């Protein structure tokens, strides 16, 4: 489903160039549950942003569902983000002025879903993350764990092919982090492809595959629970 070959990302700030990713080659299949680990500054977020079509690679190949992402125009990319990808951020990134329910409805507005269907699906998504009682609260009236669950509901509401989560438990206490992981595990069991970045081995051990980054390169890629992983 995801194929990445020779991916590079260079940040340019004036005359200073930072090579955040150097020659990454990864393949991720449908239904996988992947943890990305590595020290700070190793390029994990950079990698996730490219996977999520929020940023473009400097060079290399990224194929998502048989589509070469670098060839796509901005409008098509917006559609890919909307339809194929659910992104969960460390800092939640909810719109502060609207309720949890409305936040979850947002991706469906851009998918041109009718108001009635939007509400229904948003309620259903919130149900899946166990937040039915807080749907009419605004983000600042929710705890960190609850906010992240709203963000997950928003990420999964359009039934995306992959859910990307950059340190989803980074801002949460261990109990909330545990709850979030339970949701991810359940989603994966239902067939969702999940890729998450984490610093905590505890979290990573709950996934099925760990890809380790250092200095913009993949230094290790192993399957857990004895499951077989093919990689190029």
């Amino acid at each position, binding site marked *: 489903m995801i194929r990445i070959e020779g991916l590079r990302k260079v940040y340019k700030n004036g005359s200073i160039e930072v090579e955040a990713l150097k020659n990454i080659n990864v393949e991720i299949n449908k239904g996988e549950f992947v943890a990305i680990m590595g020290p700070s500054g190793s390029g994990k977020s950079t990698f996730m*942003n490219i996977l*999520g079509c*929020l*940023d473009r690679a400097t060079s290399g190949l990224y194929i998502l569902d048989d589509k070469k992402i670098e060839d796509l125009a*901005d*409008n098509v990319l*917006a*559609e890919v*983000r*909307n*339809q194929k990808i659910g*992104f969960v*951020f460390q800092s939640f*990134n*909810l*719109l502060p*002025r609207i309720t949890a329910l409305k936040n979850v409805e*947002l*991706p469906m*507005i*851009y*998918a*041109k879903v*009718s108001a009635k269907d939007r509400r229904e699906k948003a309620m259903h998504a919130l149900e899946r993350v166990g937040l039915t009682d807080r749907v009419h609260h605004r983000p600042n009236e929710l705890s960190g764990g609850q906010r992240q669950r709203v963000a997950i509901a*928003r990420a999964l509401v*359009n039934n995306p092919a992959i859910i990307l989560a950059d340190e989803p438990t980074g801002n949460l206490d261990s109990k909330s982090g545990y709850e979030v992981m339970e949701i991810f595990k359940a989603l994966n069991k239902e067939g969702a492809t999940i890729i998450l970045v984490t610093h905590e081995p505890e979290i990573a051990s709950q996934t099925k595959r760990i890809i380790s980054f250092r200095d913009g390169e993949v230094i290790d890629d192993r399957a857990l629970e004895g499951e077989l992983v093919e990689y190029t």
Partner: protein
Amino acid sequence: MIAFEILKIAIQNIYANKMRSALTMLGLIIGIQAVVIITTLGNAAKADMTGAFDQYGKGKLNINLTSAERPVVYRDFFSDGDVEAIEALEEIEAASAEIRRNVTLKYKNKEISSDLYGVNSNYDQVELVQIIKGRFLQESDIKGRRNVIILDEKSAVALFGTTEAAVGQVITMTTGPQTFELSVIGIDKISDSTLMKMAMGEYYYSFIPITLASRFYYVDRYPRMMVQAQEFISLDGVTEKILNLLERRYKDSAMYRIYKRETEFAQVSQGLTFLTATISGIAAISLLVGGIGIMNIMLVSVTERTREIGIRKALGARPSTILLQFLIEAVILSVLGGFLGLSLGSAIGYGIVSLLKLPFIISIGAIAYALIFSTVVGVVFGVYPAKKAAKLDPIDALRYE
């Protein structure tokens, strides 16, 4: 569908920043309001003038002497015979000459300076005369050279306090070394037109029989004649005929200028239109300022909401959707401002116009113009900030602190 959702978002944003939105609109409100007030006043003035013209300007000609060719001599003046000959023309309904002098009118200890017109009894056919008390001059007053006078209502009030008290009283007229006693037989209403009244200010006038004036001033010829032509007749043709007639009566037609009231009114009306348009144009500059205000606030808004834009883009909003969202917000602000300006301007314009007793005319054209113009302002000044928002890179926008 999505446009409706975007509209909702835009309205919510405007509502969430009520104070700022109101201040943003203020420039446009004031600008549109100014233009509306000025056009309302201009239209009112024009309608007032047109009303006055319709009442007594149609088919009227003034024949004046001119010294453009050579100095005027006494035989160039109009004799009674000339007046009668012109009146006898087929196209002419009435012709009437006048003698005009400035005199002093006195009653008891009150005195005013008045323009005294020596006129014929048919003068009311060539000029607007509206007698509100008593009567106008009659054939017998002219023939009998009676010592009678008609005052305008303001003179009557100035001398007698009320128009009622004036009729039947005897006043003293002083002209040069001579003094005469005249009895007041009628009061003439001054113009219905507010503007004419304003223009006349402290102007007083009065009428006496032309025969009486002839004797006071030892003249039997008159410097000016007014003519009422038949309705629906080409005034150019009539002018031609009058000049030919004067020529046949051994007069030098180069010595006369014939003015059409029509032309004079048209000129004044044109001037008024130009004036209105010019002042409106100047006021319209404030619309530009209003537009810049909208652009400024939209730019601030785009910066403030960079993160929101990033989130929306991450969730699948297209650049065009973001563009539309900010553009619609700018247009709502400007159209709302335009609408408020239009309403306020109309209300204030109506207030002023009714105070001046001028007609209130609200034109659909002006309303459409104001609304279209404010929409255009919103689009023109909203496009740049909206484009800026649309072009933001999603990841940069998300990282924005």
